[in-house]
């Protein structure tokens, strides 16, 4: 960063000043072991703070409240991470997935209705996966039956993160039962207060209950809430998922570099029971240097992905490469953190809400890392995408 242009340097200084006065002191301690209500209220208040500063949705178009250049976003995310600012967890799907969908495929009316509302704190959840439709998402069975100027939805969604707090849901449902599976799916905006919706949390490997099941029983959705054409939902989902991928990864990669790695070094510098520091071991030093190098590569890859996206359609496999590499790097790093931190790490029974995926509570971080290698397309699925779309290798024979 030594050759940073003057305007970026000034912006960096401004973000630093802002962080010094606005990142709540002691939030990690305060947000460890809090109730759901406290967590939600903390997240909303932090979102409001960021919004006031113009930092909440820098990746949105200018007319909707964003318009920050990519280089500025990199600076913003790296400084927020370096100052250990809380992450926007609750608003994540809203500001990335929902916004990208509305901007790319929504009607003017849908954008005017929801984009300002998201800035005011509207929370979104993604209703894509189902019990029988995970990696093979296109085989989803939830139906939306047209009935005049509305649809009636029935089915079950799974792995909907944060559904208990959501105001709205991005819903994929089948509208053309006779069509080939990808051509019979429509994309809807679903108001979570609609009668007939039942949300049940699922307990995860980490012990938390953040993923949810959503049961949909004769849920009525006005036809005006359709995004894109009827039976054209698969294409909408494909396009809009690509649109936000780079941005989300940019922030997470900066977090991994600025916070995660710093804490890993710190963990290694802490003397063990015998007074020895893992950091004095040459093997530990070597592993740390590997991680630092891999993180540097990841950060550069993310910037390239975002730059390419601004310049035109990105390579077909770029997003999958970044997702796969981040997921497995996070897993390797948290595994290593668990190993070097030893038995003491196992006594850290909780980690603070609103923190990153690498909080320094290494065992929980490690267990939680499968939340990256499984959802959003498993690592196996990503490798298949990379090979087929990025390298043009022949597709698997498709089963029935």
């Amino acid at each position, binding site marked *: 960063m030594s050759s940073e242009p003057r305007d970026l340097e000034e912006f960096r200084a401004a973000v630093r000043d802002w962080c010094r006065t606005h990142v709540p002191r002691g939030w990690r301690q305060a947000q460890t072991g809090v109730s759901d209500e*406290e967590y939600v209220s*903390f997240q909303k208040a932090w979102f409001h703070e960021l919004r006031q500063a113009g930092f909440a949705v820098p990746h949105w178009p200018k007319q909707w409240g964003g318009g920050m250049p990519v280089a500025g976003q990199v600076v913003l995310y790296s400084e927020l991470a370096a100052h250990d600012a809380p992450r926007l967890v609750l608003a994540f799907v809203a500001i990335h997935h929902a916004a990208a969908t509305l901007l790319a495929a929504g009607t003017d009316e849908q954008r005017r209705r929801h984009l300002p509302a998201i800035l005011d704190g509207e929370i979104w959840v993604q209703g894509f996966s189902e019990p029988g439709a995970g990696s093979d998402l296109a085989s989803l069975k939830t139906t939306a039956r047209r009935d005049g100027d509305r649809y009636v939805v029935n089915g079950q969604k799974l792995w909907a993160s944060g559904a208990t707090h959501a105001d709205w849901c991005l819903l994929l449902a089948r509208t053309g039962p006779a069509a080939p599976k990808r051509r019979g799916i429509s994309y809807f905006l679903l108001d979570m207060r609609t009668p007939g919706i039942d949300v049940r949390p699922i307990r995860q490997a980490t012990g938390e209950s953040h993923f949810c099941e959503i049961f949909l029983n004769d849920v009525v959705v006005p036809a005006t809430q359709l995004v894109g054409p009827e039976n054209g939902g698969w294409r909408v989902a494909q396009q809009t998922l690509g649109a936000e991928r780079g941005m989300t990864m940019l922030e997470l990669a900066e977090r991994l570099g600025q916070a995660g790695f710093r804490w890993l070094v710190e963990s290694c510098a802490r003397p063990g029971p015998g007074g020895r520091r893992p950091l004095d071991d040459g093997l530990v030093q070597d592993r740390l240097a590997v991680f630092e190098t891999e993180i540097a590569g990841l950060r550069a890859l993310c910037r390239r992905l975002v730059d390419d996206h601004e310049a035109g359609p990105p390579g077909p496999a770029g997003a999958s490469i970044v997702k796969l590499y981040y997921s497995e790097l996070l897993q390797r790093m948290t595994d290593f953190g668990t190993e070097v931190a030893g038995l003491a790490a196992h006594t850290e029974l909780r980690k603070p809400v609103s923190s990153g995926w690498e909080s320094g509570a290494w065992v929980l971080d490690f267990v939680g890392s499968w*939340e990256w290698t499984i959802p959003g*397309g498993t690592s196996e699925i990503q490798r298949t995408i990379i090979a087929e779309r990025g390298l*043009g290798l*022949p597709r698997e024979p498709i089963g029935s």
Partner: protein
Amino acid sequence: MDAEIHDELRAVARDLLGKAGPAGRPDWQLLAGAGWPGLEVPGALDGADATFAETAVILAELGRAAARSPYLGIVVLGIGTLTQLEPAPDRDKLLREAATGAGAPVAALADGDDESGTSAPFRIERSARGLRLHGRAAFVPDAAQAGRLLLLALDPGGVPVIANVEPHAPGLGVAAQPVLDATRRLALVTADNVEVRQTSVWRFAGDPQGTIRRLLDRAAVAVACDSLGLSEAMLAATVAYAKVREQFGRPIGSFQAVKHACADMLVQVSVARELVAQAVSQLAENDPHATVAASMAKSHACGTAVDVVGKAMQLHGGMGYTWESGVHVYLKRAALNRSLFGSPAAHRRRLAGRYLAQSTVLAKPTVIARSGQLPAARLAFASSPAGTSPTRTTECPSSSRPNTSGQISQH
């Protein structure tokens, strides 16, 4: 120079090297005619006034072709060193010649046997009959083909200088060190009481230590560029083969085991490419932090190349193991590259030295295990009343995950 010029340079290089064939020996006069030796030479000395960023484009193409060329010894080491010396008529003359492809100056900056790579391999002593040169440097690229040797030495005052010597000077030994990689030529350079005239002792224009560090980083990144190029070539060859080679009635590239191995190769190469690009641009801009980027690029790209070529041999099956297929040429070159100008472990030791220096000032993460439930009101902005619902069992944010396209199946 911008990306367009790089693309053009790359296309010309690929064409020119392609004519020599894989592991071919491109005609040096042809390369000289294309202006490659003089890329970084100042315009005033008949060079192209370009930067290491342009040299890097050529280096990756030489790696892609596994070309037998003295480009590393002459251009990266020899000419690279000459440009860093105090201007003087002799030096200027040599540099002007070198820009046209003549003279073949090769520099010995490090002893390949010395992993630490910190000390000058030669020393100049004052004797009754004038200055005398002593020392040795093993595994010097292209030294046996040099028209002029530029030896990094400590002068009698302990200042690093370049001793400009004839390869056939009495007391100087240049012995080829045959290696398994048939595409590179290395030599052991020894100096035993070699007479050096005062006018052949050339000083660095800037701070000698910093300049030498930069030259060695540059050499390491040059090898990383080569390894990146050969990785890309092997990935492309493997993918092409997997698309046409059939077993069990299907192209082997349609099998997931093969497909996923290829995907891993692409991911590794993509990361290496970014790290190399970062190091190249920092070196081209004389960024003082380039040394970190150089160690990252060298250790990663050269380690990756061995993995990638190894996988290429595996996925080519029995054919890949034959001499005829030529995969072994790449494997040997990749393995040699990994050891040239600092092993991955040596470069990572350099990186890790920074953690030892910094670790005392790093901020500690505040992770409170069991208690530590401060009232929310203590926070600068928190407005919520204390919650009444059950406490969350563990706190791990879960929705902050982008849904990448895999959620939508690949079919």
